[in-house]
């Protein structure tokens, strides 16, 4: 049953991706600029322009370009069917390898941020819900208001100013490692994992130090809406019939709270899943502030340079990951809520 559900969802996901492939391909070509201009720069003679257009392949009919992108013209260049996302029009490097370089940075950042946000938000949200209107609840309200209402880049810059520039207790916001440190040879692409696999303990510690401020920044901002969601749902759960019944039959307070929390978690997890997918591309401001070189930065650069292969590739990959996250979320829902049948 479960396997059938997963297969069905994956099939649906692939269908969504196919639609997306076509939509993105045509929509980006509606953008009001010609990428050839960026390539030729000052050398914009008609001949040079034609040469550049030919090199990029944009002088071919649109449907031919689409066929090449999809992989129906492998003699011209490999396409999606051959597992290729093409080469960037800015760097000439394969898009898939560039995304493979940037995505682990963002996944590390976003995952650690969500773990921290979750670890903070659940107890704080529960605390607020257990004593509604009390001092703790008011404190929770103020915290979540602050955390959720200010843009993350603002907090990032503030944290850099305070913790790096003024106090000197955080490393300079110059990337995932100090610029003078040699990174470990890529195995998984994840710096913290590769440094451990290669026994480079000092690099591992340094990588964590460099993640400290960006993770705190993002977690601080993300925790705001999660706290609100947990608190609200916890309050609702605590007022529900089954909790009243549990109280009446004399179950221990801790057991009652556990049941209520379980019921409150499902909506919170939905929010987390949605935010996670959003943050894969949306963490760009934090990546920018801390020079982390994640996939969000890659996407923004691609869009600004009208680098069609890179835009197509990054949208496709982020969407695929988001779909997988949503699937995992549905499975998690089913696991914690017996009313949901997969």
């Amino acid at each position: 049953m479960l396997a059938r559900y997963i297969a069905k969802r994956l099939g649906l996901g692939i269908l969504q991706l196919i639609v997306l492939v076509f939509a993105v391909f045509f929509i980006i070509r509606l953008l009001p600029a010609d990428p050839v201009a960026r390539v030729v720069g000052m050398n914009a003679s008609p001949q040079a322009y034609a040469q550049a257009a030919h090199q990029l392949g944009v002088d071919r009919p649109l449907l031919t370009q689409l066929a090449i992108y999809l992989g129906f013209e492998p003699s011209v260049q490999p396409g999606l069917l051959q597992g290729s996302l093409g080469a960037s029009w800015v760097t000439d490097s394969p898009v898939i390898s560039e995304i493979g370089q940037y995505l682990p940075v963002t996944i590390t950042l976003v995952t650690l941020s969500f773990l921290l946000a979750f670890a903070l938000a659940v107890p704080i949200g529960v605390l607020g819900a257990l004593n509604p209107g009390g001092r703790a609840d008011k404190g929770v309200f103020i915290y979540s208001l602050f955390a959720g209402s200010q843009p993350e880049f603002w907090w990032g810059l503030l944290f850099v100013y305070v913790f790096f520039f003024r106090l000197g207790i955080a490393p300079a916001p110059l990337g995932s490692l100090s610029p003078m440190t040699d990174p470990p040879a890529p195995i998984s692409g994840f710096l913290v994992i590769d440094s451990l696999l290669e026994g480079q303990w000092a690099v591992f510690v340094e990588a964590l130090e460099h993640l400290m401020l960006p993770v705190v920044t993002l977690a601080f901002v993300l925790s705001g809406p999660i706290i609100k969601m947990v608190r609200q749902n916890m309050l609702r759960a605590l007022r529900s019939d089954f909790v009243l019944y549990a109280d009446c039959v004399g179950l221990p307070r801790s057991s009652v709270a556990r049941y209520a929390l379980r019921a409150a978690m499902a909506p919170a997890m939905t929010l987390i899943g949605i935010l996670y997918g959003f943050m894969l591309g949306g963490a760009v401001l934090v990546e920018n502030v801390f020079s982390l070189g994640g996939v969000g930065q890659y996407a923004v650069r691609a869009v600004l340079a009208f680098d069609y292969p890179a835009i197509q590739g990054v949208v496709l990959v982020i969407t695929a990951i988001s779909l997988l996250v949503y699937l995992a979320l549905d499975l998690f829902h089913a696991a914690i809520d017996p009313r949901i049948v997969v």
Partner: protein
Amino acid sequence: MPRSGKFLAAASTGFLAFTALPASAAQILVLTEDVPAGLDYDGPSAAIPASQSGMVNMLEPLVGYAVARDKKDGVIVPDFSKPVGLLAENWTYDPATLTWTFKLRQGAKGCTGDTFTSADVIYTFARAKSVSGAAPVGWFLANVASIKGFTTDVFGKDPKAKELGDGIVALDDYTVQIKQSQPNVLLLPVLAIFGLQIYDKKIMEAHATAQDPWSHAYGNTVNAPGFGAYCLDSWQKNQSISYTANASYYRGKPAIDKVVVQRVPEASNRLAALRTGQTQLVTDLTPKEFDSLRGIPDITVEGVTGNQNLFVHMNFKSPPFDNPKVREAVSHAIPYEQIIKTGYFGQATIWRGFVPSGYPSYVPSAKDFVYDPARAKALLAEAGYPDGKGLDKFADNLQLAYVSEKESTLGPIVNILQSSFRAIGMPVTLNPIPQTQYGDRQLVKGDLPFAVNDQEKPIGVDAGYAVQLFFVSKSKGGLYNMANYSNSKVDDLWAKARVEPDTKVRDQLLAEIQDQLAADVAWAPVVEYKTQWAMSSKLTGLRWYPDNAIRFFDLKPR
């Protein structure tokens, strides 16, 4: 000390000890807004200044310029009247046959120990003429200098036209002859530009493939092997690039052994890192940020009026800018001093011309480009738009475009301009657009009606080159006439100047052109702003070059 304070102090000491960077002569850290996206000057990223900065540190040109006797604004600058040999030691020119004979330097070595010879020069020019890269910059420069055979025929179907032919020949291992198809003084200036620097043939050919016989993929994604001062150490595109000194560099081993260039997108972080001693050199700060660093101990802010400028672009095909009175009105509505003060914190001067003022043959305009709103209003009335009446119908063309990525620098300036234009009755609105879109509309479509531009500079140091780039009609050989300016007098004068061998006569022709451009208000020049860098006081030797890229070879510990 409270417990938390002790913790912070201890933590602070620990982290600083861990993150402090060595500021020794052995290596420096440079923080920039961007790092090279490619290292092939015929590749897709050649137009990106950060990419050019990588090329000029690893490749070497045949020709450069002597150092000027006096510094300018405290910065070492070239003397453009004295071209000197770099990989070429010296040269002779035979005007009868339009042939240049270059004696090449002996003993120059690349990063792998390859010795520079005429074969490397031949390879470089043959590669340029193959026009096999995404953006044929090498061909473009050779074409501009009238090197024989570098015509538009190379883009035709005849494969022979793409072969080097007899325009450039090697007489022996250390002698090369370059022939021109007509007299043209631009040969030496273009040989000094990044787009004709010399590749190490042996390494390039070792990475050639059947599909890519000129190793563009290698140049774009792996390395730019040449005979320059630095060798590629590591390169993570969009992140960082590091160079190690070429111990065999013919001008001597560089004083800095290793240079790490790190991309830090936030200017405020680059500034903070310099202030805390984490880096030794930063670039691409806003004028305000550079200003904030002046007077701070151990930090030097250097700046020079080189070739960067700001002007207001008005398209001759877009009404009301087809009316000379309107263009003139615009030029008198610009509050020059306020822009210098507010936009550049004093690090700019009023630009009274159409060619960088430091270039040979520059002539300051006789026309008085001064802020005079009353005169601007009167001119607008003479143009048929008293108090701006009737300009509403040109609302689309009165959108003042600028590059949105430059908001932090251009934002204050365009706001000043908008207010000033509105004050004389022009209903100007602001139109920030992405760099690529701006470039497309300006370069390719030529349909940008009204814009503020601070990014066009002729890196070929010659007034004639600048005129060809920006003002000659496209049908007469103009290259980049973004304002669709066309004046047969200018075209004719430029055609004469292009082939005029006598410098004095040529200067006179170029002066006449500049006078005509001013009379036509071909664009409204505003200011020349300083190219600035901020660095540790322990570094010295920084020089300015027309491409505005730092040569790390110049840097030395104080």
